[in-house]
């Protein structure tokens, strides 16, 4: 009797479990599909609009796929000198900035990862304190514009961001957790100098974390606009994002782009089309590069999360 009763109970609980698991799976799939659509739809809409007839975009006839497909918007974007100059400038700022960040990052991280460094505690504090307290916007602006006199100088976009303590900590954690001390010690016993160890052992073995940081840092520099907006007045030095702000948010269109378009409505339609095309063109480099580096990206975040 009791045995039977027990059996019944387990059956019942198994059944309940099965049902609960089913409800769980259904809810999870619903959430995932919902999140997928919410994120995906605006992206598809932007791309479709950039290929559509400007009037169709304005009047809401573009819902999912392009209407009356055309490349007019893209033609106008590539005719625009400002955007091309912005592209070139941002490419330079990004490459130089990334290289500097990697050099500075490893120069700082390698000594800080040594166990026997004299004054290590103080040095750590010196570095980490800057992450939690800063002079703020005004003293920073006065330093760069006034004291250093970097107004309208590309260095104003490069020097202040040439190092990040956050990257230093990522590299330091990577070195001390995945490069065995024995390796560097034996190299030192063989007469290798500190610089030799850095160049021959640390740099080659830190390549994964350096790749990830190059990526993080590149995205950050490519996408930043604010320093360009406050420190650069000369249009020939504008980074891409400042050019984008003028076109997309202030709607200052270059007359070149609108040259052969007659009529107010057509002009307005063209403006919308150009905006969507600009959005696609300016975001494309990062989005296209992303699938190739995704693996590293995820790995890097995991490395960073190993310890705070």
């Amino acid at each position, binding site marked *: 009797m009791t045995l039977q009763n027990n059996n019944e109970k387990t059956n019942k609980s198994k059944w309940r479990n099965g049902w609960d698991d089913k409800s769980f799976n259904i809810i999870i799939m619903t*959430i995932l599909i919902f999140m997928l659509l919410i994120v995906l739809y605006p992206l598809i809409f932007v791309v479709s609009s950039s290929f559509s007839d400007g009037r169709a975009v304005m009047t809401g006839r573009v819902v999912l796929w392009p209407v009356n497909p055309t490349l007019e918007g893209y033609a106008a974007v590539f005719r625009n000198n400002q955007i091309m100059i912005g592209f070139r400038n941002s490419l330079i700022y990004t490459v130089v900035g990334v290289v500097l960040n990697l050099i500075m990052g490893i120069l700082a991280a390698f000594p800080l990862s040594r166990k026997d460094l004299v004054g290590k505690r103080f*040095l750590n504090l010196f570095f980490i304190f800057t992450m939690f307290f800063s002079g703020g916007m005004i003293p920073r602006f*006065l330093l760069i514009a006034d004291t250093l006199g970097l107004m309208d100088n590309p260095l104003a976009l490069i020097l202040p961001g040439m190092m990040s303590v956050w990257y230093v900590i990522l590299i330091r954690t990577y070195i001390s957790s995945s490069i065995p001390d024995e390796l560097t010690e034996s190299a030192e016993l063989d007469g290798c100098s500190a610089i030799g160890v850095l160049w021959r052992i640390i740099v080659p073995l830190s390549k994964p974390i350096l790749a990830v940081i190059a990526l993080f840092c590149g*995205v950050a520099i490519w*996408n930043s606009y604010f320093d360009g907006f406050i420190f650069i007045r000369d249009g020939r030095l504008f980074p891409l994002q400042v050019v984008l702000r003028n076109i997309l*948010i202030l709607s200052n269109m270059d007359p070149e782009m609108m040259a052969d378009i007659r009529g107010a409505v057509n002009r307005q339609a063209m403006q919308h089309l150009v905006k969507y095309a600009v959005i696609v063109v300016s975001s494309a480099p990062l989005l296209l590069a992303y699938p190739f580096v995704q693996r590293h990206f995820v790995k890097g975040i995991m490395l960073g999360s190993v310890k705070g």
Partner: protein
Amino acid sequence: MTSMKSVSVQRRQSFKRRLKRSFPYYLLLLLPIAYLFIFHYMPMWGLQIAFRDFQSQTPILQMPWRGLHYFEQFFSSALFWQYFRNTVAIAFYSLLAGFPLPIILAICLNECRFARFKKSVQMVTYMPFFISTVVLVAMILQFTARETGVVNHLLEFLGFNRVDFMARTQYFRHIFVWTGIWQSMGFNAIIYLAALSGISQDLIDAAKVDGCNKWRRVWHIDLPGILPTITILLILNISSLVSVGFERIFLMQNPFNLSVSEVLSTYIWRVGVAGGNYSFSAAAGLFNNIIAFALILIANFTARRVGETSLW
């Protein structure tokens, strides 16, 4: 006695030796330290202008001392307190709405059994992270435009009136917070996914054997397993509360929504750099930074007490 002496001599020698051995490392540190000194510690020294009258082309120590004059000025200004409230409202709204979602997304992804679907969701939800602030704001403006925006086309289609979203104060916070979540949710989920993948399979199997269903496994295994990660990220989020996405908010502002969209950091910029009132805005900035610093200390202390996890 002699042995003690020899020990101390040895120690001194070894200290000397360690110092000598450290020397090349100091050389390597020279540039990074110079960088930190110039771009991080000099602005801290420059914070004195909050207590002085700013004069251009004058060494900072020779600018006239005003004490707490500028602090009194902004503490007694009604606008300042309005912007302070705006900052707090946006910051807490962002935190409350934005913090749990990446965790939910990560748990769903972790439990999803269709590998390819899981991969596509991950891929798509990370994508907005690569979109720049300028482009994101441009998209918001395009979509919400009164006559031409897709959101308004939809509203009209459903029989509602068109709304000028960016000019109405009541919508600003929602638009700001939810578009921020749209952009960062997938990216923030990565770190939780990493933590979830570190939970031991044995634990999960044992729970299965004990007849735990999936709801219970999430509640009793997954969540406690990623609790340290959650704590760390919560501390980091709290410490950046007061900076509330300055760059994005700045681009989303217009004269019509300024009464809710102006936050401390944009106000400091407007009064300081744009208005040339350096001392006043440096004082407001210092207040801002002290709050941020206090928040991180409190968050870290609480986390250490409650969860035995902390940043340092």
